[in-house]
């Protein structure tokens, strides 16, 4: 049964929210026409809504806390249901096959529109995995990741415009330019720690965007570059439908390639060095890891993917302008990494699919979708701060005679 004190608490919460939202929700002024509109109905909705929601909120919070306590007391790491699936070959292999078959037949079942948004989602999977190297593995908070994305997109647009270079030629060039810019950003920020790093990367992202916006002679300014060709395939001209499908399969291939590389990197010497750096910089140096080199490779390798996806982005939309590379985009990619679960590849993949497809399917609620998106970010973090799939740390157990 719900106790009286609970009801009282919820009642107070609802009173507080009615007070809080009063000026913004109830009164709508029009200073131009000099009229005021009173919307008392909104106040009622807020009151009842917050009263009910506060129960849910407290219940969820309690559940989360009791779960944590249990884990603390028994010293066991609760392994979630999804992780158990992932560790069981009998389950995950068929699952993988089903996903694979689904991915391959996807464009045949669904319309070009669905394929198109799936391409976008896959692009963000790659971006998320790239940023995951910097943030998830090396623990360097990068708020300007979109800068490398812009570098890739503009390198294809400009190289194609001036020299007529094709997509497949520019794809590696975009990646290399990403690396160069990654190192360029990496050098000055080597000494910075934590949030200082965050703001400098944010500044770097903004500088790149502002230059693209203002330097008309170089980048054509805010009106952008149009008529960027879609990817070619040995000179065959595609219709729109097959071009979409082509990009889709190319993205599937590239995503698999990314997953493969990131997975190998994670377990490599350099991957271990990143994780050591993330956990403790001083101890990591004491172990003889070259901090400079490790940080720079993290930035460079992270930027590679952004550069590559930038090229694909330009080829897919056929038009780019600086407005696509704002801070919000960086925040979006970072949210993918954190919501998915930092450092976990499968988590980032799921995170990207959810965060990109969600607003697209929320189109029905078009007005409310950004507000819902914001709310979902908060709720996700409050109740599952470790992300959808938290990275299971590799542990080694001593299997001795310890009865």
């Amino acid at each position, binding site marked *: 049964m719900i106790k009286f004190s609970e009801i009282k608490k919820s009642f107070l919460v609802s009173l507080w929210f009615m007070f809080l939202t009063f000026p913004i929700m109830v009164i709508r002024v029009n200073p131009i026409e000099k009229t005021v509109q009173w919307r008392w109905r909104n106040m009622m909705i807020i009151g009842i809504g917050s009263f009910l929601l506060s129960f849910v909120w407290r219940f969820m919070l309690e559940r989360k806390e009791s779960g944590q306590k249990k884990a603390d007391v028994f010293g066991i790491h609760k392994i979630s249901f999804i992780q158990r699936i992932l560790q069981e070959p009998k389950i995950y292999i068929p699952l993988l096959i089903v996903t694979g078959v689904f991915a391959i037949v996807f464009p045949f079942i669904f319309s070009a529109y669905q394929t198109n948004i799936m391409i976008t989602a896959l692009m963000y999977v790659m971006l998320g995995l790239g940023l995951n190297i910097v*943030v998830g593995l090396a623990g360097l908070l990068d708020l300007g990741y979109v800068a490398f994305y812009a570098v890739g997109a503009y390198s294809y647009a400009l190289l194609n415009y001036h020299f007529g270079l094709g997509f497949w030629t520019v794809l590696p060039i975009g990646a290399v330019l990403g690396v160069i810019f990654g190192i360029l950003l990496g050098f000055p920020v080597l000494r910075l720690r934590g949030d200082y790093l*965050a703001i400098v990367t944010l*500044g770097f992202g903004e500088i790149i965007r502002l230059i693209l916006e203002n330097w008309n002679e170089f980048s054509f300014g805010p009106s952008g570059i149009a008529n960027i060709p879609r990817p070619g395939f040995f000179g065959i001209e595609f219709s729109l439908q097959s071009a979409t499908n082509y990009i889709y399969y190319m993205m599937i291939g590239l995503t698999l390639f990314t997953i493969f590389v990131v997975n190998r990197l994670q377990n490599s010497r350099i991957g271990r060095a990143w994780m050591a750096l993330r956990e403790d910089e001083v101890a990591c140096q004491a172990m003889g890891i070259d901090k400079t080199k490790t940080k720079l490779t993290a930035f460079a390798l992270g930027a590679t993917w952004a550069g590559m996806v930038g090229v694909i982005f330009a080829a897919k939309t056929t038009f780019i302008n600086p407005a696509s590379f704002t801070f919000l985009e960086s925040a979006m990619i970072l949210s993918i990494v954190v919501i998915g679960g930092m450092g976990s590849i499968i988590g980032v993949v799921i995170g990207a699919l959810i965060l990109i497809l969600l607003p697209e399917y929320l189109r029905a609620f078009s007005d409310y979708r950004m*507000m819902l998106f914001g709310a979902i970010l908060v709720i996700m973090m409050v109740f599952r701060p470790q992300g959808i799939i938290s990275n299971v740390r590799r542990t080694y157990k001593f299997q001795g005679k310890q009865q």
Partner: protein
Amino acid sequence: MEYFLELFLGGLTRGSIYALIALGYTMVYGIIELINFAHGEIYMIGAFTALIVASVLTLFGLNQIAILVLASITAVIYSAAYGFTVEKIAYKPLRHAQRLSPLISAIGMSIFLQNYVLLAQTSDFLPFPSLIPDFEFWEAYSHIIGSAELVILITTTIVMILLTFLIKFTKIGKAMRATAQDRNMAMLVGVNVNQVISMTFIIGSALAAVGGVLIASHIGMINFYIGFIAGIKAFTAAVLGGIGSIPGAVLGSLVLGLTESFATGYVSSDYEDVFAFALLVLILIFRPAGILGRSTTQKV
């Protein structure tokens, strides 16, 4: 020379607005090491509340001074309330989570609040009544610095002095400093840390509201998006001065405001923001903890 003076005073005014917002960032950061991305939105909500209250009161036919005072007080109260609530909902449950989770929560909160105001009010720019009157005695100098700018400078100075007093000499100020230095130790000596954190959010948000009301009545219009840009700039200023340090935030804001003003005046406003961020990068290269930040040697 007059041109220089005009740019200087213009930059100082802009800097003081940044300072009012930056203080909120730096205080929160000093205590819980969180970049409160929703802080810019609190500033926007302050400005909106003032606009709504002022419009309603104008209909009741109050005189200008009364409107100014009442609108500002309501804005400060509401901003403080929003700051308090945001902390309770989005950050408090995350006290012990890994460092990036509260950051994403803050970004989510910022998007949420922006769209909340967009939907509940409007996406259009609304004219903000010029609450600050034009002083007659200042008429002769108004081509160099207008009365509104003068009021901004004076108000900011008074607010800074009050804040310094609060931090230095009151009980809550001492508790705040203690919590900033070492949260666990503060808890051990009997500081109610949760209360201190709430207080920090309330004070920071109230300062942002003051900034919101001042700037809105100076430039004469607001929309739901003003908080985002001002927030990013103020955050830059806070880091420039050394995040966590209160005099640092003020100094950083003034430096940023002046840089922008002079960059526009003597070079070009096209690259105004590029100068601002380039300055930040340069200063951080030579002083990795900001101008006034303590560079802590990490203990092992």
